[in-house]
């Protein structure tokens, strides 16, 4: 009996559907030729739709879901990818990120989501594979996208390479010595294939970013289209036009700070807002092999008890909530983890629904079970555990 890794692409004529007693989580996305999942059933809806070139074919930023082999893209944080359940956001899905409080962690996730696409798009200069649509904000916001994280080793290497590239007498002498040493220790030999096999199957799927840095070359109009929201109906038309102009690319669509009065007109009525969100979903489902949407909304402005937010949640495929800790809990964490500042978290991450799973009827609500930390190089998500104060230390202090 042989076992196959769940994340591996299952293909070929021998691939058979799994014996499942009832209709459950659909496995595999129809109309997708190369990335085929087990038990995939062709649907007449998408099978007839022909795209000029499959955008998912050999895309470095696409991998199959570990649950149903549906193609997924990284949100920008590997931890959030894991939380979503598929190891990424399934293409054709709508992820809503809600945030309470005056913090703006959701914008960090939006930027990571967009930066991921830009980096993947620049992997092969001759053939662009990703396009981005930014709704409501302009190029100025896009200029603040974070740059790829470089570890200290990589930075040192870069510095050495820069120095070596300069023409100087010492460099010329060193080059000769290097060659001798390299010959002696066999360093110039080409790396063996065994080393290649250890490389991750999807090396460019989820790049790490340094949020304190800025992408050195800001995304241009050929990579990112900014769509103003002065007229919501016109915005929807422009979004669709942009999608049609990029038929062979994966498109990451982002709506940061949705309904924030700084960006959106105050006069928008609830039906107008719902029509716009429903319109976004229409476009998303019209191009299910190409588009993914991330939207962020502040719950202080529009709480979850508001019917409008409930409707938006119903229209979306996945809902995550960022709830920063209250000051007392934050103080406690700072006190408890005085010597281990890395353990201090910033808030709870609540799950309200997950793509495909919630749609199938699974109850995905998980509140106060995860915590998040917005680190310099990672947006970390971990299982939440209540910090415990060391009583001995406290007593000692009292005695003193």
């Amino acid at each position, binding site marked *: 009996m042989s076992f196959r890794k769940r994340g591996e692409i299952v293909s070929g004529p021998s691939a058979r559907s799994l014996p499942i007693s009832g209709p459950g989580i659909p496995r595999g996305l129809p109309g997708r030729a190369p990335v085929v999942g087990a038990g995939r059933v062709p*649907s007449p809806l998408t099978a007839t739709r022909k795209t000029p070139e499959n955008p998912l074919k050999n895309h470095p930023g696409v991998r199959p879901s570990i649950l149903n082999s549906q193609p997924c893209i990284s949100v920008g944080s590997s931890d959030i990818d894991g939380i979503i359940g598929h190891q990424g956001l399934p293409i054709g899905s709508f992820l809503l990120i809600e945030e309470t409080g005056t913090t703006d962690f959701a914008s960090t996730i939006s930027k990571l989501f967009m930066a991921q696409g830009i980096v993947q798009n620049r992997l092969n200069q001759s053939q662009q594979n990703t396009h981005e649509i930014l709704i409501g904000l302009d190029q100025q916001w896009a200029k603040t996208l974070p740059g790829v994280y470089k570890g200290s080793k990589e930075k040192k290497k870069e510095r050495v390479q820069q120095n070596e590239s300069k023409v100087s007498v010492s460099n010329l002498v060193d080059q000769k010595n290097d060659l001798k040493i390299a010959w002696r220790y066999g360093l110039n030999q080409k790396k063996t294939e065994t080393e290649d096999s250890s490389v991750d199957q999807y090396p460019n799927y989820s790049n790490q970013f340094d949020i304190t840095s800025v992408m050195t070359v800001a995304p241009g109009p050929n990579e990112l289209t900014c769509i103003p929201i002065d007229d919501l109906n016109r915005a929807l038309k422009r979004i669709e036009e942009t999608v049609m102009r990029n038929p062979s690319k994966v498109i990451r669509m982002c709506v940061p700070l949705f309904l924030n009065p700084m960006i959106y007109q105050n006069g928008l009525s609830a039906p107008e807002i719902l029509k716009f969100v429903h319109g976004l979903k229409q476009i998303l*489902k019209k191009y299910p092999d190409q588009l993914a949407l991330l939207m962020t909304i502040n719950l202080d402005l529009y709480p979850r008890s508001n019917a409008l937010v409930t409707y938006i949640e119903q229209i979306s495929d996945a809902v995550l909530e960022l709830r920063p800790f209250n000051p007392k809990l934050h103080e406690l964490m700072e006190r408890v983890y005085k010597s281990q500042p890395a353990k201090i978290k910033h808030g709870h991450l609540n799950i309200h629904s997950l793509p495909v799973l919630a749609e199938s009827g*699974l109850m995905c609500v998980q509140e106060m079970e995860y915590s998040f930390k917005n680190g310099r190089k990672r947006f970390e998500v971990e299982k939440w555990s209540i910090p415990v104060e060391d009583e001995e230390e406290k007593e000692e202090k009292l005695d003193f």
Partner: protein
Amino acid sequence: MSSSSDLQQQDLVVFEDHSIVPRSSSEYHYLTLILFNSATRPTWLVTALVENSLFGTCYLNKSPISRRSSTPVVLASLNTAESTYRKQLARLKGDLAEFKYVDLLSNYSNWFEMLSAQIDQLAKKGKPNVFLENPEFLLFLSDTKVDTLLLQLQKLNAKCNLFLISSNDESLLEYSEIPDDLATIHTSFLTKLVHRSNLLMSLRPLKTGRAVDVTGELTICRGLIDSPQKVAEKEYLYLVNKEGTVKLFYR
């Protein structure tokens, strides 16, 4: 060998005569209201009802069904893509020729005409069972008023058994003095629907929070309009797992 959870597993029964969907009759048309919460979506239940209408079987049940029937089905949704239901139904062994999907997610402007045309077309083979998901969206996406929408639904119900699938989250059930308030409109729509329905099926998560072995509760109760077929009022606990199996247990 069956496990203890298998032994407790129950079959879905909606009416006292052990049937699941109401019998098709030229004289009487049922209005069924399926209510759900955002955390407990009803796709699995709708699939079971569609299967029972089309083939007389039900994938939730272990015991075979004695009465085999075949009623054409029209399914329309304003929120779920066709591919979702197609994928679910493709797992059922059977010919889906008598299953028609009306895509209201992409185009809802002529929803009434589209549904009516589909019902009339299928009526030659027998009175269809029509499932309409999230009809309340029409109140906000188009300029339809609650009473107009109810009247249109009543017209459809005159031709077929109608299953309306609507959400009843707490935040949507609140009256206020503002007439244009979303929650007020939604509550008014649902209340009026309840007063016209023969059967209510409700899905909601456990009040005690998330559990590993239970997804939620399914409540079956009769509506405010009496019907020829008597409803077997029951409460089930149900479990939907990642593998796609669904199990029902008595509450």
